[in-house]
């Protein structure tokens, strides 16, 4: 059975801190890994990763995939209170829909 495990499940940091969120997976016929940010109900897309070792960057957020060790990390530098959200990791295997982890709940306090 395909599995996605995220850690930590929750995290509290102060504004300005840097955080690293982890996602490990076990799937058959891996195709891609996606990161989403969920603030209220609708998850919003952050990154899609398909190749190992290539960092994707968007502002203060960056992510990288390691297909040998079967994990990805999401980094957020200089955190702001607006970064508070649940960060979801999801994996796509061949011809299957997204399999999500439970998410990491990030709280950034001023």
């Amino acid at each position, binding site marked *: 059975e395909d599995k*996605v495990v*995220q850690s930590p499940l929750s995290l509290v940091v102060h504004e300005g801190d840097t955080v690293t969120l982890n996602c490990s997976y076990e799937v058959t016929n891996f*195709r*891609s890994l*996606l990161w*989403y940010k969920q603030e*209220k*109900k*609708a*998850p*919003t*897309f952050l990154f*899609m990763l*398909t190749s190992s070792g290539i960092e994707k960057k968007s502002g203060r957020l960056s992510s990288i995939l390691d297909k040998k060790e079967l994990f990805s990390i999401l980094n957020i530098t200089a955190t702001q209170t607006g970064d508070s959200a649940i960060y*979801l990791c*999801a994996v*796509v295997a061949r*011809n*299957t*829909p*997204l*399999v*999500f*982890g*439970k*998410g990491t709940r990030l709280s950034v306090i001023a």
Partner: protein
Amino acid sequence: GAGVSQTPSNKVTEKGKYVELRCDPISGHTALYWYRQSLGQGPEFLIYFQGTGAADDSGLPNDRFFAVRPEGSVSTLKIQRTERGDSAVYLCASSSGLRVGHEQFFGPGTRLTVL
């Protein structure tokens, strides 16, 4: 429309009743997905449409759950004889890609509460 829309945003019903949840995807998106998210969990796949047909319904938990997309656009998720355990946020997503892994855009969800 500009994004994926779902109605109603909240639905409260009694155990044993029938409910319908609607999803209006982004115009032109051929793929449509339904997920269910319980408190403290990530979204859990229910069913996926490519056009009008259900390409994968392996996530539907039992035969009380059914979904349709008759014209390849709007989809309706139908739940018969609701149970308290069906309470969750039901999310819909759409994508333009033919490949399943293409970026999915999510709607705001319908929060279903079964009393």
